[in-house]
């Protein structure tokens, strides 16, 4: 009897140790970049733990925010995920070769809302967010994804393209502010709904002072400047306007010499 108890205690201790050791041994794919103290993580085969600032995240870990908690997660490929309260995700695919910049990233969204801001992996192939009703592909992009009451909504913020796939049917948008649901493209997001989603993910903006960090982001981007893609691409809107600068006058003058010469010749 005592032997059986000892064995049970030993087995329990072994199991507990394994739960604690697994996250440490598993390869780190990301880190908690900011969070409120109620964020919980459950690594595969491990026990649920509190995720604080700087806690390592591993593949297949389930991350859940509380009813009042938010979090930002940062991944090795420089992608970030922001989680709204009451959100549960599974970090179910992450393969990254930093030398080649290749791999894949995929997240399961069971419940709640998130913002995905792409890094290296979603530049050339889509990052995926899988909800119980749809699969969202985010390529070169930033997007907001919500799943609540059995319904999925995805909002394209910036980048190349956002797609939704339901039962093999795919629908995509490249319109910034475009909304996709299980039924396809649903038009442009309203400012009110966008404010609601951003408020959910980031919390309400606080009143504050005007001091700034000075990243220099405004320097190359005065208000009159055209947009640039997440890959740095931009369109050249005056590409075909060369004929209507003063250089055009100069081209005409080439013809003028000929006419003037002939005019003068005719009087010689």
């Amino acid at each position, binding site marked *: 009897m005592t032997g059986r108890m000892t064995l049970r205690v030993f087995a329990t201790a072994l199991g507990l140790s394994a739960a604690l050791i697994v996250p440490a041994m598993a390869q780190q794919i990301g880190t908690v970049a900011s969070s409120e103290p109620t964020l919980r993580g459950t690594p595969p085969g491990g026990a649920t733990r509190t995720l604080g600032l*700087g806690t390592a995240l591993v593949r297949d870990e389930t991350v859940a925010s509380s009813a009042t908690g938010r979090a930002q997660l940062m991944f090795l490929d420089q992608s970030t995920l922001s989680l709204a309260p009451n959100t549960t995700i599974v970090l179910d695919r992450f393969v990254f070769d930093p030398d080649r910049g290749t791999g894949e990233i995929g997240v399961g969204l069971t419940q709640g809302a998130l913002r995905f801001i*792409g890094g290296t992996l979603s530049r050339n192939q889509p990052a995926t967010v899988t909800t119980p009703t749809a699969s969202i592909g985010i390529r070169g992009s930033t997007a907001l994804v919500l799943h609540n009451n059995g319904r999925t909504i995805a909002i394209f913020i910036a980048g190349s393209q956002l797609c939704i796939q339901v039962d093999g049917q795919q629908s995509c948008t490249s*319109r910034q502010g475009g909304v996709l649901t299980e039924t396809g493209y649903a038009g442009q997001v309203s400012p009110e709904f966008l404010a609601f989603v951003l408020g959910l993910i980031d919390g309400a903006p606080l009143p504050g002072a005007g001091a700034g*960090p000075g990243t220099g982001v405004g320097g190359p981007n005065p208000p009159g400047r055209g947009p640039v893609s997440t890959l740095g691409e931009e369109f050249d809107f005056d590409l075909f306007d060369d004929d209507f600068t003063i250089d055009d006058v100069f081209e005409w003058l080439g013809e*003028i010499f000929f006419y003037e010469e002939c005019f003068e010749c005719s009087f010689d």
Partner: protein
Amino acid sequence: MAGSTFRLTSACVALGLCCMLTAPITASAQSADLETQRQAVFTRLFASPADPDLMLQYARLSVQLRDFEAAAATLERYVDLYPADAGARLELAIAYFSLGAYEVAEYHLAAVQASGGLSPDQAARVADYQGEADARGGPNQFSGHVAIGRAWTDEADDSGTFGSARLEWRFDMGGRNADEWVTEFAYSSYMPGEFSFNGRQVARLRTGPEFRLTGDAYGPRLQPYVEAETFRDDSFGFGDYNSLAFGIAYQNPHNAYWTSFADFQVGRAEVLISDAEFDFRDASLGLSYRPSRETRLRGSLRWRDEQSPGLDVRTRGVRVEAAHMFDLGQAEMLPRQWEVGGFFDSSRTEEDFGFFTDEFTEVAFGGSLRAFVTDHVFIEARATDMERDTGGFTQRERVYALQIGWEF
């Protein structure tokens, strides 16, 4: 004297071309160096994700690499950690504005405005970005310029008023890919007075839908269009014509540096003095290179064939041009924003009259300097040197121009 000036300017153009050819290599090396620095900062940031200094370093390097998405991601975290910093939120709004996410930018700009405590400069910036984001979010977008000035020719020794105007209207056709209907009207005129033959006026209207071929926000765009043009000159009306053309314009930004473009059109023109008609085919093909957001280099090839009874005209040309914008900062007595530009253009034209042919080549090069006295009003000075060689007989002309304009 004229010969030495020509040699000097030719040398300057050659130097400019060398710079154009070496710029991609230099820019690529700088970019690789910045990327290495950023990766090193990211490694440290990954270990200390809430370190504000590392966050700002990472955001700055991302901005230098034209990766505004990474800057936005970092500023999102900064704002989350320091929610009372309205200046940080303003930078976050600008990062989203740069990415064309105007709705998100407006959300953050409104939050900045409501936060209170902004400096007058920050409040002015918020208002500027809000106005622009609001205008770009609508279904109709207008842009263009109006400019007027004076031009002087050296050899022909005349001068006159020069004016140009352009209005572009982009109408959002709706739909998932935000395809647009683009209509452009452009006009330019040179009026040296009644004692000169050099007066010219040209107006063009081009309209057509612009499609995103791959469904990507920044993939290839194709615009089938119809274009009407009218041309008037003072030299006995020989050149006056009206034309109608159909064409396709294409551009594709392959990455942050390279964009390819092409324009093909076929049309018919009616010469007003004789009611004669000629058919024409125009084509141009080119590459644009941006070593930075402030610098643009372009090279293009062009072809034009005109066919009329008794005369076929074939023109082949090449053009390279460069433009660089720079900011003098808060310099006293001087405008802040400047743009310097230059071009080199060479073409060869063959005229086949049936019983004899004529050939001539034209070479032109020039430079310009534009100063923005306000965000929208500019003053520009230009100088161009051109030379035409017709079977050993060479003609030269220099043109100088000074303009004031309004860009919107």
